């Protein structure tokens, strides 16, 4: 049972502000993902909860306890490191048991808990091995086991899956999600991988340059990005962001005209539209938004990614897997205007479109 709260937390390294006036409440049992590019302050934020970094100002609470000045050992949090940080000189069993040994857990209970946790992460046959004798996925499991062996108040996970190969990552992602659901422990998870964030999180905090750009459920973040940064960061392939001008509800850019933006006018605007919200239509179609030559066609299996040449940039759209267009062929596209976003390039914030 634990919630974590940041009240106006700032962290500076010398003159560099890593985390700026940070406010966030992570609810009990919640799986919260801090998502952002490297250097955005997400790991620093997590390390402040662990007690590995000190906040320069502001308060951090676990439940109602202010933990700024509490030693890490009394915070009762567990952390999984990106590098796993397994103790190389200790066996799997001793690695998992380390937190228990430090807390002087009696031998029978020590044995029982290690066996139980090892079985849960399927390491029960490898307890005597050294970390270097394990595969990447197994090491990852040891790191997890070491974190869950003592049911802490909060789990902290620092890009725990980034060292695994793609297939294993997908599998461990599912296991992690299941485990968190089963254990019901508040979790803060740091990643730069937006797919991990989307799939794992109850809520995602998208961070950039030390501040939260947007906080919301994965669905909100995806369907309702509040800033240009969030719009560009979430989604794969990313959202098309096309600079242009909006005059009385009509967006215009080189070769592209899209109406349906109510009556707004933005002198320097950016149109955002996701690849799946752009459709290939007959160039002669009356509601065609753009006619452009095809730059590349990539079949992904379930569908086809088509890039069109638009001025000096590319616009990507997701077409049917049976799409048969050729490179340089001119095709028409229609943008779903109720699924498009307009951003003010000055403020980088979204402008609401009233229809």
């Amino acid at each position, binding site marked *: 049972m634990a919630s974590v709260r940041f009240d106006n937390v700032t962290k500076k390294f010398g003159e560099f502000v890593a985390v700026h006036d940070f406010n966030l409440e992570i609810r009990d049992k919640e799986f919260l993902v801090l998502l952002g590019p490297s250097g955005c302050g997400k790991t620093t934020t997590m390390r402040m909860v662990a007690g590995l970094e000190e906040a320069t100002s502001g308060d951090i609470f676990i439940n109602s306890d202010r933990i700024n000045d509490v030693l*890490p050992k009394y915070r009762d949090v567990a*952390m999984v490191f990106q590098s796993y940080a397994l103790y190389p000189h200790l066996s799997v069993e001793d690695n998992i048991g380390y937190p228990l040994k430090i807390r002087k857990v009696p031998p029978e209970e020590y044995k029982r808990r290690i066996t139980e946790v090892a079985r849960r992460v399927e390491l029960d046959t490898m307890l005597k091995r050294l970390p270097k004798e394990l595969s990447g996925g197994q090491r990852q499991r040891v790191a997890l086991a070491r974190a869950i062996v003592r049911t802490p108040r909060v789990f902290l996970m620092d890009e725990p899956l980034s060292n695994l190969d793609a297939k294993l990552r997908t599998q461990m992602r599912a296991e992690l999600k299941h485990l968190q659901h089963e254990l019901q422990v508040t979790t803060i998870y740091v990643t730069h991988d937006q797919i991990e964030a989307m799939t794992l999180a109850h809520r995602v905090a998208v961070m950039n340059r030390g501040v939260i750009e947007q906080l919301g459920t994965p669905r909100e973040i995806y369907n309702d990005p509040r800033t240009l940064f969030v719009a560009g960061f979430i989604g794969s392939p990313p959202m098309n962001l096309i600079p242009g001008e909006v005059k009385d509800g009509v967006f215009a850019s080189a070769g592209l005209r899209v109406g349906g933006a109510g009556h707004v006018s933005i002198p320097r605007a950016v149109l955002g539209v996701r690849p799946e919200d752009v459709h290939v239509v007959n160039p002669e179609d009356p509601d065609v938004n753009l006619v452009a030559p095809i730059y590349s066609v990539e079949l992904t299996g379930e569908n086809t990614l088509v890039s069109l040449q638009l001025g000096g940039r590319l616009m990507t759209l997701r077409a049917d897997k049976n799409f048969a267009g050729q490179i340089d062929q001119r095709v028409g596209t229609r943008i779903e205007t109720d699924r498009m976003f307009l951003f003010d390039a000055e403020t980088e914030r979204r402008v609401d479109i009233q229809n």
Partner: protein
Amino acid sequence: MATIRTRSRGREMLLRLSAYLTILVALILTLFPVYWIAANSFKFDIDIFAVPPEWLPRNPTLKHYDEAFIQRPFLRYALNSFLVAAGTTAISVTFGTMAGYALARFSYPWQWRKQISFWILSTRMMPPIVSIIPLYLFFNYFDMLNTKSALIIAYTAFNLPFATWMMKSYFQDLPVELEEAAIVDGDTRWGAFLHVALPLARPGLAATAIFCLIISWNEFLLSLVITLTEQSQTLPIGIAGRVTQYKTYWGEISAAGFMACVPIVIFAFIVQKHLVRGLSLGAVKG
């Protein structure tokens, strides 16, 4: 294809042969003096200077061992050397490890980490002979001349900076997350040092220890100035003492010199496994 393969195989053979030859020459150059000392220690005085040289002792004798270790106090010197070297090594490694850890891990305001590190290293920059007179006066003032403690203190002053730097670079090569993990797992800073950093630094400890040991075991200059009595003099001084005004006792010198090599060689063999990894420091991640 076939000709190319044979040619490259011939080249390979040639390369390997020249490598072995080089190693052989190096081995002869380094090991021959040791062999010569050993051989001479078993010869009668007259045979030591035989022309042509007597490559193998024709009439082997233990006479010089008897002279050195039974009649003269070389066992005593050896004991002194051992106590001084062990004491110096223990103190240098203990404090060097802790200082090295502190320099590697803790944060310092401004540039203090660099300044302190350089200051520690700078004490090794002058030639040892420069400090001899101050050290002599210092030990004289505290009435410590002719004591093994004086030697231990003096040697530690020379070994500690070295041990600190060596352990510092060793700790810097250990991933810091391991200790962070220990701290989050509930350990204290001291506990993380003791349970995680120190066991992982074993190769570094071994390398540092053997260097300290060799330096104090072989040290001559300070010991010559600070100690005059049989109770405090070390092996190198004892051995040099057999070069007298009238005669140089080559047999005794050889016997004592050969025996003086033995403990270091044995110790090096014991820690060899760690030594190689300790010396390569960052090159091989543990």
